[in-house]
């Protein structure tokens, strides 16, 4: 039996559709069930529905064998897992955004509001820029408007929210998308379960590229 951790919500639904098309279907998932652990009758697969930011933790500690998680969460958590495949959806960018017309004062530390302190720290350390991190949990766009920070580091999908708040992307840190991750021990003891899933998903991905 393969334990798969899926992020609850929109991304999870999309991932489930993909997995089910690869033969990892689970009829209980399709009913409007509130349970968090769902297994198919054949005993081939069990889905765990967890908070998106917790997927990598479940996989790292072996509570799930594989999982699907955004690259942003993976980089922020720095979890010790294998990253096996780029699933090619949930595509967005990790960006630095600032009020339109913003000019940095290089003589003072840059104040950065973000949900991603680890990624932010690493990025600016690489540029030898001194910063002050303001860790927020949501509505990051509000910070520069109220003067709480100079810039923000956040994920940008279409840029609509930024535009509406009179912000613009000034630097792109890296591209983000959904990744298939696996527990290190599961790759040894459950290779016969993990490898077919990986192969099926890879086949789907190349199919998608050709189409």
């Amino acid at each position, binding site marked *: 039996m393969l334990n798969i951790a899926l992020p609850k919500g929109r991304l999870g639904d999309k991932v489930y559709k993909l997995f089910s098309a690869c033969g990892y279907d689970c009829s209980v998932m399709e009913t409007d069930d509130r349970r968090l652990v769902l297994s198919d009758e054949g005993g081939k697969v069990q889905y765990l529905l967890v908070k998106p930011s917790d997927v990598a933790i479940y996989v*790292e*500690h*072996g509570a799930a064998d594989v999982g699907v998680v955004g690259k942003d969460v993976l980089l922020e958590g720095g979890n*010790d*897992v*294998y*990253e*096996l*495949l*780029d699933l090619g959806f949930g595509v967005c960018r990790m960006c630095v955004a600032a009020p339109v017309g913003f000019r940095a004062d290089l003589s003072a530390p840059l104040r950065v509001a973000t949900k991603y302190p680890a990624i932010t720290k690493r990025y600016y350390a690489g540029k030898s820029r001194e910063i002050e991190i303001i860790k927020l949990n949501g509505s990051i766009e509000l910070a520069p408007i109220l003067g709480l920070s100079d810039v923000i580091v956040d994920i940008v999908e279409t840029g609509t929210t930024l535009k509406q708040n009179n912000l613009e992307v000034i630097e792109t840190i890296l591209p983000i998308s959904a990744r298939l991750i*696996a*527990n*290190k*021990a*599961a*790759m*040894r*003891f459950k*290779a016969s379960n993990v490898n077919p899933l990986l192969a099926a998903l890879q086949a789907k991905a190349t199919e998608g590229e050709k189409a």
Partner: protein
Amino acid sequence: MEQRTEARREQLMGRLRGLYESLGYTRFSMRRFEEYALYLENKSFLKSESVLTFTNPDGKLMALKPDVTLSIVKHARKEREGVEKVYYKESVYRLAPTAREFVEIDQMGVESLGAIDSYAVSEVLRLAIESLRAVGGEYVLDVSHMGFASGLMEAAGLTAEQKERLFTLIRQKNAHELALAIAEEKIAPFYADRIAKLAGLSGTFPETLIRAEQLAVSDEMEQALGELRALYTLLTAVGLADCLQLDFSMLNDLSYYNGIVFQGYVQGSPRVVLSGGRYDLLMRRFGKEGDAIGFALYLDELTRVLADRGAWDADVLALYHSTDDLAKVNASVFAFVAQGLRVFATSTRPKDFHAAKVMAFDGETFKEVP
């Protein structure tokens, strides 16, 4: 429950000590502290970079040791003839993997220093396998050779930074980002195709070896494969090859490790529980003669595994009456012990006691009762 895990851990350590000593490995004991500079200069050798430090009365910055191998090599004699075999059981101090807090961890390990020939390598590998086996349950030993990946990157003429970038992605088995990085670094297609395959180059030994042979482009790589082949042949001959897997995505730090490297996993633990390899370069760094190979077993990673192994308080709960022939009871109880069973003998049945078998004395011998 806690006590039982502790008892199992003690039992395991006792067995391992016996195993190492029976092959002539002598116990190496060390001081609790080392100068911090030792760890600062060899940061990339450590499992984690965080070190617990304090200032001694002379104003020197000291550290509670996060690692034992560095100390063994540092304090080893400069010159030696033949081979020196040591084992250790020490506490090391590291950041807990999940919380930002220092913890004391029991670690056991084996190091063989000096004239390391193929036999010495196979002996250490076999000890690693036997150590995993002693934990109980299913286990896997992943083996690789640093010379394979490093030889390939050397042939492609990559810089140290390029190598480090690619190594990080290969370790994560991150084939998609590895392909992007290779394209960005503008590596010649002949090498690019081969490097791209490293992330997925793992599996059963003979089959993976054949796939690897197709990638070999230099003497260093051929030599690495030769060593792996010889090791596999030897361990097959002694019937220990079933647990071996070959995984070229497993890469240790290039500035310390050359040659064979390996990592052990046991069923029930989500992380690496045993890690080791050939570290001749560390010996050179400390100006010591000879080569070295060794491994460490992380006992902290085994806590959960040992707790899960057979949740019985005893194998046999042996019930007798005080009116029974106690000499016969005594003899029967010790007969169980001689079979390797754990027995709890009592005249009153204890509450909340979990035994694999409950047996009652019938005047002659113990018979199973429901």
